[in-house]
């Protein structure tokens, strides 16, 4: 290895970060792959923990061949000393300096010991997390995010009960329902608030990705085979239980997205896996000063943010699934490698990935237009419903801040109610507070991507953090 070779720090080892790391490492760049998980894979390729000794992890996965290819490529580059994988590193801030970048991380799940990585450029591939809108009972144990149920299943080989309802909206509900059913959970119902038939009317826009449509159809067949009842244009209106979930009430929606009175039905269950779409992780990009458009980090054709030396790929730039994350990561890695070595990249070299990226972005834009939460979801949220889970702020308090105290934006609501001031820093309640307050959603603006112990911050002035 040549010490003069440029250094790229890739943050996130999901499909986007892995594709980027392999592309860059293959083109004369030394890569440090920094990731908070103990093993690479991100959300889509989350693996059972090594200690569990899974001999057939692929039973819980799709696109296993792609994963094998990524994993083998990574292992080879690690063995050749071209990629360093820093697992268990939670990055809380990336600092831009005159001569490059310093990535600040905290080690291990307890996140107390600091570590730093220096690089000439950084590539943000931090993915996303799930959005869940509130409804009465959503804080009961047994109610989990759909992706969370999937993550616990894929990573820990556990489920939280015997009978589940999977509900909300979006394509993620399908793999979650099939995953739980395959793992022995009785899936009492899959409740989708949108009407996927609307997709058929937009078939033209989807035709470019017949493979993705086939993937959806495959899940649908699997659910049919397992006799999972699928209710479309339905929504969960309440989760019941005192100390844990015992049942949910599901109701039909009318054409306007309002609950149709009299259609409520109660279904006993001990698990509700619920999600209303995904949100990108943009904290590190925000702190670096990258432009954010809507919820997404803005990138150009080469996946460059508008801060020099900072690339972004995968769901941090917009939600679009693993295949899009792979295409974007590949382009970002190649662009970064070329530019770090002082030449303009030739986009023809990644024409196939660019074509795939364009088709998948179009595909997901169409999906987004169909899979939206019910238009009148806030009507189901009673005043007593907790909206901010960390600070236990109710919808009634948010409504009072707007109606009686005159708050006109999310920031003021936050100051008046403490909604969004707790541990998660509004990541979970952000869209809910905005919806209930009737204000536009605003980007979070968090100074740090992770809670940082004060001792670590105090050490930042000296260089002790690195010396430890």
């Amino acid at each position: 290895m040549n010490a003069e070779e440029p250094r790229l720090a890739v943050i996130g080892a999901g499909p986007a970060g892995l594709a980027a790391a392999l592309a860059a490492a293959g083109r004369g760049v030394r890569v440090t792959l920094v990731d908070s998980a103990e093993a690479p894979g991100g959300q889509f390729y989350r693996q059972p923990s090594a200690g569990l000794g899974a001999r057939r992890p692929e039973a819980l996965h799709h696109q296993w061949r792609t994963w094998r290819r990524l994993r083998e490529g990574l292992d080879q580059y690690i063995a050749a000393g071209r990629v360093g994988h820093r697992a268990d590193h939670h990055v809380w801030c990336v600092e831009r300096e005159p001569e490059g970048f310093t990535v600040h991380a905290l080690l291990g799940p307890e996140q107390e010991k600091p570590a730093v990585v220096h690089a000439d450029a950084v590539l943000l591939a931090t993915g996303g997390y799930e959005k869940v809108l509130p409804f009465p009972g959503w804080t009961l144990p047994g109610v989990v995010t759909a992706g969370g149920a999937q993550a616990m299943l894929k990573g820990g080989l556990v489920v939280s009960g015997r009978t589940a309802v999977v509900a909300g909206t979006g394509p993620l509900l399908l793999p979650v329902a099939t995953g739980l059913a395959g793992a022995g959970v009785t899936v009492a119902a899959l409740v989708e608030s949108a009407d996927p038939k609307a997709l058929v009317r937009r078939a033209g826009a989807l035709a470019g990705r017949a493979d993705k449509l086939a993937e959806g159809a495959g899940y649908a067949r699997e659910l049919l085979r397992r006799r999972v009842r699928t209710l479309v244009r339905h929504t969960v209106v309440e989760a019941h239980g005192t100390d844990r979930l015992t049942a949910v009430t599901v109701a039909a929606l009318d054409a306007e997205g309002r609950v149709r009175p009299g259609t409520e039905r109660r279904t006993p269950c001990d698990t509700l896996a619920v999600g209303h779409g995904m949100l990108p992780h943009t904290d590190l990009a925000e702190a670096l000063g990258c432009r954010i458009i809507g919820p997404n980090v803005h990138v150009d054709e080469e996946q460059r943010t508008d801060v020099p030396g900072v690339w972004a790929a995968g769901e941090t730039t917009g939600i679009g699934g693993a295949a899009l994350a792979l295409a974007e990561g590949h382009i970002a890695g190649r662009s970064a490698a070329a530019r770090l070595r002082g030449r303009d990249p030739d986009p023809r070299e990644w024409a196939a990935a660019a074509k795939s990226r364009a088709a998948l972005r179009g595909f997901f834009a169409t999906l987004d237009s169909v899979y939206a939460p019910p238009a009148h979801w806030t009507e189901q949220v009673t005043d007593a419903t907790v909206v901010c889970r960390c600070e236990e702020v109710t919808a009634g308090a948010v409504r009072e801040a707007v109606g009686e105290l005159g708050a006109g934006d999310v920031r003021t609501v936050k100051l008046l109610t403490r909604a969004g001031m707790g541990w998660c820093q509004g990541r979970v309640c952000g869209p809910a507070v905005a919806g209930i307050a009737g204000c536009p959603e605003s980007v979070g603006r968090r100074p740090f991507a992770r809670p940082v112990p004060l001792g670590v911050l105090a050490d930042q002035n000296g260089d002790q953090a690195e010396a430890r």
Partner: protein
Amino acid sequence: MNPLELAEAEPGPAFTVTLDGREIDALPGQTVAAALWAAGVTSWRTTRGEGRPRGVFCGIGVCFDCLVTVNDRPGQRACLVPVRPGDAIRTQEGTGHER
């Protein structure tokens, strides 16, 4: 079929940890949250304000709903922290600093 069978898992020998003094079995490689789920436990903290029970919500370290006290250290995210032999896990009331 349970998920361990589905993935043909052959974990190392189970070990014992305690939840509020009660012994439960855990497997190497599990997080605290996974071990508690496997033992049929879904809540292990109560909220500061209303004293309401909470457990896993996001499953990936984002929401902080799964906070728990492990070996006298409060505020650990159960969905991230690996379980280790002999761990003394305690349900956490409020911030865990109050008692």
